[in-house]
């Protein structure tokens, strides 16, 4: 069916074309730009919903463009890509609203929104990639599209952060390219399908395949911020808040995590992974990252840096879930965390942005008593933070629960200990913030206060975090319902026969 394939192209165009038009728009066309952005985001959401329904009823969406031997551009929507694409498009809509409010009066907005749209286009394309080459293509393009966003402010710190970002990601990209080419010379074109490559190859090319896996992991690990490849992430915090939200909740780190999922489940396949004995490697890498990120987060006073280290730690839950892939429950936990972490983290970043934009608060020590000044924002923040710790009925609890069940089923006490320890650490760095925000007395005047009539801050800044916070609770409460991230993840796993 041709039109079904073209739907995927339309999904990409719905943010690409507005992006291109926005580049050409003069700076002062505020209304046109905003409506284009929102229109694009809305259309994309509609397209993706159509696609999701189609996938649910078993339609096959696919479009391909063969280039050369072994290199083929292939967009293919399977349930897993639908998961990531839906997350990205929903959060894009919210982030766009937020960014419009956040960047009011700031210079160079047309470039900002142009790259923003490109960034989302590329992220969705990563979600829809049907083979490793296409994934690589958009993975590299993501680097290029996010770089201008990181250096958007043009300050020396921003430039330094941008440079480090490039060093990490381009280096990772080169390693990834090398690994992909190597893999393809052994296994032939690597399509994303449940089977993985032929098990016969495991015997003949064991060393090569193990090395390729390590290289691939290094390639995607840079963006997924696996320790020790995470150095760029806290530095990238100099970017404007919507960018941080986008980078950390949706685009970059999730692209890396999604890459790990694809490599484990689709490129290698669970059977080959266990034949090659690669799971322990992944477990170790992700556990180290989880603990290290949490410990580093404990030491931070800058709120956004704390959130960044928390991201380092939380994203690795996805990898940890994948590393227990023998057990479907753990896989469920990992995959559903892809969505859940996105929701929680974007709430936290929105709130951090609100604090900075309204009161000029950047440090945790300045947050005493802030909840009285901005109750809605801090309520949303608290929900996100509690979710991170894993307290029911938030979504964070759901993913940790499933992961814990998986570890238990495998008698893997070590992983259980990691889970418990990281939750404890999460609590250690989030709870003091919450208590001081809600219960402490304001000591000093706010660093840079701006007053808005009616609401505690601009409406466009307030709505997105409130919405995401509500989703965090609702999706956690009704996790077992027919329509929920968890239900969709179960649907995904049917495809893998787990």
């Amino acid at each position, binding site marked *: 069916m041709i039109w079904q394939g073209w739907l995927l192209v339309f999904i990409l165009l719905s943010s690409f074309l507005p992006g291109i038009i926005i*580049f050409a728009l003069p700076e002062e066309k505020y209304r046109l730009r905003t409506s284009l952005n929102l229109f694009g985001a809305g259309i994309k959401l509609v397209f993706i919903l159509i696609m999701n329904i189609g996938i649910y009823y078993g339609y096959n969406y696919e479009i391909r*463009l*063969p*280039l*050369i*031997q*072994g*290199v083929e*551009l292939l967009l293919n929507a399977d349930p897993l890509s639908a998961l990531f694409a839906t997350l990205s498009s929903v959060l894009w809509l919210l982030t766009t609203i937020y960014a419009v409010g956040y960047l009011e009066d700031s*210079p*160079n907005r047309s*470039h900002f929104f142009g790259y923003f749209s490109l960034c989302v286009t590329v992220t969705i394309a990563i979600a829809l990639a049907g083979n490793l*080459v296409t994934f*690589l*293509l958009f993975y*590299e*393009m993501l680097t*290029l599209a996010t*770089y*201008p966003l990181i*250096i958007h*402010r*043009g*300050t020396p710190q*921003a*430039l330094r952060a*941008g*440079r480090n970002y*490039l060093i990490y990601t*381009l*280096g990772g*990209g*080169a*390693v990834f*390219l*090398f690994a992909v*080419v*190597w893999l*393809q*010379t052994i296994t032939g074109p690597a399509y994303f399908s449940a089977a993985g490559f032929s098990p016969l190859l495991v015997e003949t090319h064991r060393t090569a395949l193990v090395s390729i896996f390590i290289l691939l992991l290094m390639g995607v690990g840079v963006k997924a911020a696996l320790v020790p490849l995470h150095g760029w992430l806290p530095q990238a915090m100099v970017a404007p808040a919507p960018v941080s939200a986008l980078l950390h909740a949706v685009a970059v780190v999730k692209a890396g995590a999604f890459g790990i999922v694809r490599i484990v489940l689709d490129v290698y396949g669970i059977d080959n992974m266990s034949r090659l004995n690669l799971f322990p490697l992944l477990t170790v890498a992700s556990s180290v990252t989880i603990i290290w990120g949490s410990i580093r987060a404990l030491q931070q006073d800058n709120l956004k840096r704390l959130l960044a280290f928390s991201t380092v730690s939380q994203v690795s839950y996805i990898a940890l879930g994948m590393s227990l892939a023998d057990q479907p429950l753990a896989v469920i936990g990992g995959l559903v965390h892809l969505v859940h972490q996105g929701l929680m983290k974007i709430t936290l970043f929105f709130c951090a942005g609100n604090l900075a934009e309204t009161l000029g608060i950047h440090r945790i020590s300045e947050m005493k008593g802030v909840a009285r000044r901005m109750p809605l924002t801090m309520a949303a923040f608290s929900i996100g933070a509690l979710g991170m710790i894993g307290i029911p009925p938030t979504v964070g609890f759901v993913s940790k629960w499933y992961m814990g069940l998986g570890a238990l089923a495998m008698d893997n006490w070590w992983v259980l200990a990691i889970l418990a320890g990281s939750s404890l650490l999460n609590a250690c760095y989030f709870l003091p913030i919450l208590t001081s925000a809600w219960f402490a007395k304001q000591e000093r005047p706010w660093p840079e206060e701006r007053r808005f009539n009616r609401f505690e801050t601009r409406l466009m800044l307030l709505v997105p975090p409130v919405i995401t916070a509500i989703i965090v609770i609702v999706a956690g409460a009704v996790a077992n319902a027919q329509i929920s991230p968890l239900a969709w993840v179960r649907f995904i796993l049917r495809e893998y026969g787990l």
Partner: protein
Amino acid sequence: MSFDSPTWIVCPIILPLIAGLLCFLFRKNTFFIALFASLANLLSVAILLWQFLLLGPMRYSMGGWQAPLGISLRMHGPTILMLLMTAVSGLGITLYARGYFSFRIAAPKRVGRHERQERFFWPLWLLLMTALNALFLSADIFNLYVTLELVTVSAAALAALSGKPASQIAAFRYLLVSLLGSLSYLLGVVFVYKTYGVLDLQMLRQVASPGPGLQAALALMTLGLLLKTALFPLHFWLPPAHANALAPVSAILSGLVVKGSFYILFVLWFDIFASSISQNALNLMGVLGTGAIIWGSVQAIRQQRLKLLVAYSTISQLGYLFIAFPLALRGDGGQGAWAAVAFMVLAHAFAKSAMFMAAGTIFLHMGHDRIKDLTGVRKCLPLTSFAYAIAGVNLMGLPPSGGFIAKWLLLSSSLTSSQWWWSVVIMTGSLLASIYVFRVVSRLFVIPAGKSICACRPHSPLLEWPALVLAMIALLLGLIAPYPLLILETDTLVSCLLLGGGL
């Protein structure tokens, strides 16, 4: 003249030639003559492409005299790709040059100089286009020498056109080096003639057998051509010559002219005398290519001036072409290396032309090209900055550019032929490339807070769009990859049939 007439093959030579003579004869409206010639050239190449896809490779005997006696033109896959490359970037360069000169004449620094430059640019450029087309089409080893000299003379004159002392010194050195290269090539031709008594490439391929005469000839010709192609360590003349020329001239020199001598070299090594090439020689080429990639990139990273940076990056990119040499003759990797070279040449031609054009536009508007002072150029020259960045993506070999396809092919043929060390070189090269590309791009795209950049507006769309379009072509070359491959493969298919038929 009907569409399938064999006469079309001479059009890419004759049309720019006539136009060049007319541009010399008349002093007014030279741009329109040149534009007409570029368009007509593109059209005739398109017709040739159509004929080629329909009828396969063809030969054309000049003056009706068959091969050993007369001179033949031949058209096979690589030829048609090179002609397309010349025609497309030629059209872009023609348009850009118009914008460039009208800008310079509108804002004169020295009255008279720019008129002189424009007056002589057009005939020289059109004759250079003639020469390149003639070179790509020629099937006679001595005729190749004559076309090489045509290229040399016109390119050196163009390089000196700017009139600055630095450019004249560079052009002089360029001329001498090219002469040395041509003479070395000619001596090689003499050895070939002394050994085999024929000059036609096709016949040479049939009679060529390994021997001291052929080895000496190949060594001499290779040396000469390497000198002209500026392979490390024979590259010393290239950066000053390319960096000090006028921007359209730099685009021509870097994008097209070096490809001419490389084309001859490649045809000699892999088509005509392929049977007599030893693996050691190929490895030597690979090693030199490695040196070029590393040295060129490191030098590019160290430059303070934009045009010099771009010029050094040419050296490094040319290195990739030679990395393909050791991969090209080994088993199943060979075909891939051929295609890799084709993509590399095409993508580099478009991207580098675009890059030099963008650098020239930046130079015109900012009045300098010191890299550290280029902050925020995006604000006033958005299209040019994008053109530069997109061309840079190509040099880094990021997907979906033509450069990416080339690197992919090189990587996979190096891994399949288990010569993995070349792939390490390739990856290192692209990382170094990304350093020198982003050194500039990050400055172009940063707008420092609270600082007004430049109030200038882009002067003419002709200064911005040709660069952007060429860069886009280079970028999207990856997406139309099957078509160049089809052209290359049509050729080998048919030639296999011909060889099988005992021809």
